[in-house]
């Protein structure tokens, strides 16, 4: 009697640990979750670091005994950061500027992607190859000549210096967006367009009434990505538009002016660390909010829209 009990127990334990074919067993699950938790630490560590340190007072920052839990929450850092960044006003101007550019990019790349996907014309392959090559040939490489072009066109130091290339499909990472739309419009059956054409619709009408309503997931994806990328782009924006148009640029200017006052290493240089980190938190807060709201679109529409560029 006892022997059989032991045997079934062993079998059950084995089943529990290894499952039917190892993949659904307990050990496999433990390994998976351990790996997930340890990898997620890599991505969460900087964010947590920033969040915690932004609440620290100067004493806490210097004190080597305090690493993760500040002795008192220092909300003053945030009020100072808000003061420095002129927050309510600058967030509106930044959003207005980024919205303008990313909307321009979204609309233009939808039109261009449709043109590449649904029409046959001579030199199409060559032009498409050139379009893809613009991703590898980034704006940073042509920035010298581009600056002179903008200067001649009178666009230098205005927001149009980024809006105009965006309208003409040459914005930052525009090749990716065009590719996303191209992949999507390829999947729409051509029969749909043909039947509309037989009914007497012009190509513009087909595009506006049939293609665009179908492409709403891709439009959301492209808009989100371009919003995030334009929000975070500081090099090109500082070069062409200049000044302190966006929040991240304002933050950079603040850091630069502070480090000339208190060079790193001198007493007082720690003073602004917490404020800077608080400012950083504020600068990416809109993006984080947007990301958590639209997370579904970031993740799920990826394979539907074909960012992989097969």
């Amino acid at each position: 009697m006892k022997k059989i009990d032991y045997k079934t127990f062993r079998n059950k334990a084995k089943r529990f640990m290894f499952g039917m074919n190892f993949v659904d067993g307990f050990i496999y699950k433990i390994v998976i979750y351990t790996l997930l938790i340890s990898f997620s630490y890599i991505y969460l560590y900087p964010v947590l670091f920033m969040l915690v340190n932004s609440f620290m007072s100067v004493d806490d920052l210097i004190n080597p005994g305090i690493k993760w839990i500040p002795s008192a929450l220092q909300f003053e850092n945030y009020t100072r950061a808000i003061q420095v960044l002129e927050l309510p006003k600058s967030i509106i101007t930044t959003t207005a500027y980024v919205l303008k550019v990313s909307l321009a990019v979204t609309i233009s790349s939808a039109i261009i992607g449709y043109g590449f996907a649904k029409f046959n014309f001579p030199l199409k392959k060559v032009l498409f190859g050139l379009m893809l090559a613009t991703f590898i040939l980034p704006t940073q490489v042509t920035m010298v000549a581009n600056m002179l072009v903008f200067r001649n066109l009178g666009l230098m130091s205005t927001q149009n210096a980024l809006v105009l290339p965006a309208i003409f499909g040459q914005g930052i990472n525009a090749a990716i967006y065009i590719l996303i739309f191209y992949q999507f419009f390829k999947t729409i059956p051509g029969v749909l367009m043909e039947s509309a054409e037989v009914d007497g619709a012009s190509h513009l009408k087909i595009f506006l009434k049939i293609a665009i309503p179908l492409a709403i997931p891709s439009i959301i994806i492209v808009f989100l990505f371009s919003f995030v990328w334009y929000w975070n782009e500081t090099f090109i924006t500082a070069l062409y538009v200049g000044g302190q148009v966006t929040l991240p640029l304002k933050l950079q200017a603040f850091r630069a002016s502070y480090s000339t006052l208190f060079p790193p290493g001198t007493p007082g240089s720690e003073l602004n660390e917490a404020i800077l980190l608080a400012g950083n938190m504020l600068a990416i807060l809109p993006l984080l909010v947007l990301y958590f709201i639209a997370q579904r679109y970031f993740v799920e529409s990826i394979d539907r829209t074909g960012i992989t560029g097969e």
Partner: protein
Amino acid sequence: MKKLTLSVGKFFTTIWNKISSFYVYKVSVVFEKIGHALVHNFIIRIVGLKLIIFGFIKIDITRKRREAFYGYMFILLWILGYLVFTLYPTFYSLYLSMHEAYYNLEDGIVTTYVGFQNYLNIFRSQTLLPLFGSYLGKMVIAVPLVVVFSIMIAVLINNPIKLKGFWRTIFFLPVVISTGPVINELANQDATSLPSLQDSSILIYISENLGPWIANPLETLLTSMLLILWYAGIPILIFLAGLQKIDKSIYEAAAIDGASPWDRFWKITLPSIQPLVGVAIIYIVVSMSLFVELGGILDIARTHMLVGAPDSTFWHGYGFAAAIAWIYFFLMVIVMSIFVGVISIRRKEK
């Protein structure tokens, strides 16, 4: 009351009738005439199904040609933008890189031809050449690391796990954050390395026992581990999309034939996402190269473009900056083609 509404309605209908009749009999006639004139003038004429240009060039309007016309109309925006904002600047910067160019308020750009002098100056430079070298070293080590890491995470997330949305939110955080100045800030705060890695004796061992040409890239790799792994954001998305396209029944068939999970990973999962590795590599190289760090190559190029006066020794003008950018671009392409080439060679052997 009824009378009032009726009279108001009558009033609007009379006004609307007047407007519509004005439009039909006056405005639209003008439009029609303009439209007619646009396609029936001396230069362009449409007769039946023939387009006649200048009276002697006759083109049949076929369905194919009409389609091509509309196709060009749709991508006209891109063609114009490409010519003005990409093609012309590309050639112009190539032209500038062979000249000594300065900006002058009266004459605009002043150029003098110097041949390959700018390129030679870069290779002679004490600050730039080591930067290019360390860029190459960093790329060679970091890119395979990011690829392997992102494949691992994509496979992990693709498992049937609890709280899928939560894990995905964490692993796609880099998409939102890594492109921004936040990363610069974190690098300044020494938060780009895992503390345990930084304190370990591996670093000391490496820097003491290996030559500087390999120790330096390895050291920067280890101290900025987080920074490098943060580039995995988009590659994870790419690989995940590839993984989700694999047919589940292939795995089942393999399992029935007795393949272990380990075998299934190497024989099914990896070969089916292999074509995506090339795309991921291109993406990683581009995004890593375009990350502007203070004192980096792109930063120096900007300094030479913007700062200083012509007589300053630190300022070499537009030509020098253009040459830096071109060499940087060529290095980028070389790195990319080496990696992609290695992968395609392995595929041919199979």
